[in-house]
């Protein structure tokens, strides 16, 4: 049993969990300003009210697990992407505060400002995460000590920006489906009308990114060339996306949402297969790349952490499922709501 591979997979699972769960609430945030009227905006906020906080825990735990399992990657990426991560922190704080503070006062100006803050920060979080992902795909300059050797503006290359926009589009699609599932009446009809636009926006971005990857980033497709069976994941991914409008037409919103989850998971799986066994690819000196072997903690620690995960993960799944079960159904506003 190769513990390094297991941890690569486990961190992938944590980050996919994050993308699927926080993905929809970031998407709700991205669409927030398009919804008019205070009560409708409160419904938007409260559709994610009880769960957004828990969704973000997947990121926190993913970060902690990366620190524990691949400390060299954690240190290199976090210090290398310094300014980008600081901006990410700022928008994460603003978003949390906006959700928490918005409905605490009646003032129109107060609510309007927090609405803007909530929506912009949601978009920026998705975008910055996408940019980070884009840079991991293209590879970044590393020196022989495994330290980042580029600057902040190197991170804003066209490909990474494209991945950033694609991430925003993906989360908007995902979020719009979620809101339709959680609302009723006029608001639901209105947002249902947006789903198709979101899907089209995402598919355009997705096709463009795929073409760019195939043309400019050959290392990401090496494994797929070597093992053609892996291409079935790409087909499943396409089918999952294609299934979304079909389910929406049949008013099976929950199944549409599951399809959307599946498309996010399969996209990240394709990304992980392309990357494996590297975690951070060094460009232009591939020999300095950080892999699941040279950047990992000791075997003993990976083993201890695996036991921690085996004990902890069933609880995590139990909490997550029960919370979504308890707060199932359409959003209702009461005096404890946001």
């Amino acid at each position, binding site marked *: 049993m190769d513990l390094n591979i297991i941890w690569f997979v486990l961190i992938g699972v944590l980050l996919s969990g994050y993308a699927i769960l926080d993905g929809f609430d970031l998407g709700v945030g991205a669409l927030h300003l398009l919804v008019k009227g205070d009560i409708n905006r409160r419904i938007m906020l409260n559709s994610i009210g*009880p769960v957004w*906080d*828990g969704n*973000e*825990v997947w990121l*926190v*735990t993913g*970060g*902690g*697990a990366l*620190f*524990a399992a*691949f*400390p*060299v990657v*954690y*240190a290199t*990426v*976090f*210090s290398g992407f*310094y*300014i980008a*991560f600081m901006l*990410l*922190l*700022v928008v994460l*704080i603003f978003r*949390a*505060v906006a959700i*928490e*503070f918005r409905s*605490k006062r009646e003032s129109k100006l107060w609510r309007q400002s927090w609405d803007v803050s909530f929506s912009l920060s949601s978009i920026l979080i998705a975008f910055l995460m996408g940019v980070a992902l884009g840079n991991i795909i293209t590879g970044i300059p590393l020196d*022989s000590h*495994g*330290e980042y050797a580029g600057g902040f503006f190197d991170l804003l290359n066209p490909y990474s920006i494209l991945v950033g926009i694609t991430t925003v589009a993906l989360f908007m699609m995902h979020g719009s489906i979620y809101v339709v599932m959680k609302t009723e009446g006029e608001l639901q009809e209105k947002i249902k009308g947006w789903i198709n636009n979101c899907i089209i926006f995402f598919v355009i971005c997705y096709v463009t990114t795929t073409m760019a990857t195939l043309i400019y980033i050959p290392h990401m497709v090496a494994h797929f060339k070597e093992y053609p069976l892996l291409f079935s994941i790409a087909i499943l991914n396409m089918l999952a996306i294609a299934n979304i409008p079909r389910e929406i037409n049949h008013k099976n919103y929950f199944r549409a949402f599951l399809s959307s989850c599946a498309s996010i998971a399969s996209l990240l799986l394709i990304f992980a297969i392309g990357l494996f066994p590297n975690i951070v690819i060094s460009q232009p000196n591939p020999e*300095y790349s*950080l892999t699941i072997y*040279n*950047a990992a*903690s*000791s075997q*003993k*620690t990976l083993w*201890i*952490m695996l036991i*921690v995960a085996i004990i*902890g*993960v069933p*609880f*995590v799944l139990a*909490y*997550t499922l*029960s*919370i979504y079960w*308890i*707060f199932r159904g359409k959003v209702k506003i*009461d*005096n*404890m*709501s946001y």
Partner: protein
Amino acid sequence: MNDPELIARLQFAFTVGFHFIFPPLSIGLGILLIIMEGLYLKTKNKLYENMTKFWVKIFALTFAVGVASGIVMEFEFGTNWATYSRFVGDVFGSALAAEGIFAFFLESGFLAILVFGWNKVSPKMHFFSTIMVTFGAHLSAVWIIVANSWQQTPAGYHLATYELGGNIFKRAEITDFWAMVFNPSSMDRLFHTLVGSWMAGAFLVISVSAYYLIKNKHIEFAKKGLTISLIVAAFSSVLQLFVGHTSAVGVAKNQPAKLAAFEAHYDSSAVAPLYLFGWVDDKNQKVDLGLQIPGLLSYLIYGDFNAKVTGLNAFDKNDRPPVNLVFQSYHFMVALGFLMIGISIIGLILLWRKKLFENKLILKILVPTVILPQLALQLGWISAEVGRQPWIVYGLLRTKDAFSKTVSSGEVWFSMILFTLIYTLLFILFLFLLDRKIKHGPDDITPSEDIYTDKKTILG
């Protein structure tokens, strides 16, 4: 000020100091919520339900700011202290990941029920959620203090090397997980912090309740709240005397340089004195304007007035913490501890004699006491962490060798200014909303409302 490492240290002190206002409040308020909601379930008195609902809203506010400022901390190890992260990741990272898996999911999951689940689950399930959120808050304190204590008193590890790009690096790796978790200082420091957190929660409730009594508002609510919180405050303040003492004895054993700095004890000597206050002149190695009790330090540590206490001069000049800062923060923390014991005991006696609620003077004194445990927590943290200097991991890695190599002073300045602005704004907003919530008070139940609810129950 072009030394990025110095700015990064200031930044860490500032961001962790800000963060450390909130988790203790959550931990302490959690305990009080359990008591309040437990009393509601037991007595079925609506007043306790209102009380729980009111404090849950405040709890949610402190929790939210705590989470937002906590994510910053998790990122900061990697962004600013990358060399440290590489060195300790194998050990420290594990504790942090365990915190995420065991504590954060638990807290955030049950918090949703605590805040939004009043009409979704049964009262018993809701009470269970309150207990679980509080348990989760305590559990996250366990893991983060285990991680931090390992920096103070490393155990259960060995130094190993790993290779990267043809270079050899040194780092700490776990050899014994449980020895790492139960390192020599972790349990002492955990209990010390938890009891301090209970005090933080209790004095917040004391302060707000006393304020209502002075203003003649929400009288019954305030009386019950004050009673509960005074009992918790007195219990934990007195308990802290013993827990804090144990912690200091542990420091003497495990980090003698830190203890010597607590008391500005320069030459190793028997009959070591304990200072009540003073100002340390580090250059001339003496304490100005000080008042000392001969032999008390020896007695407190070893139970023997003649025992020898190691002084700062036993350590190389490069291995000593900045003495006066550690001395002052430690002494003020201890003084605040005694002050809180005094105030809460006096309050409890007056409560016992049924003279508290009418005594405007003592109520006026109680209102600002919310700041006392907060100050003591911050000062205690300063003495613990500055007392650890110049080491980031005691005896293994120096703070000056731990900074991120690729980060420039301009970048650290950028983030420092950014955090200063945002935290200032955040803090003002937090106080503003807290103030409004307190002024608004609990949603009162009027007699007519009561009849209405009763009727509804009768009619089904």
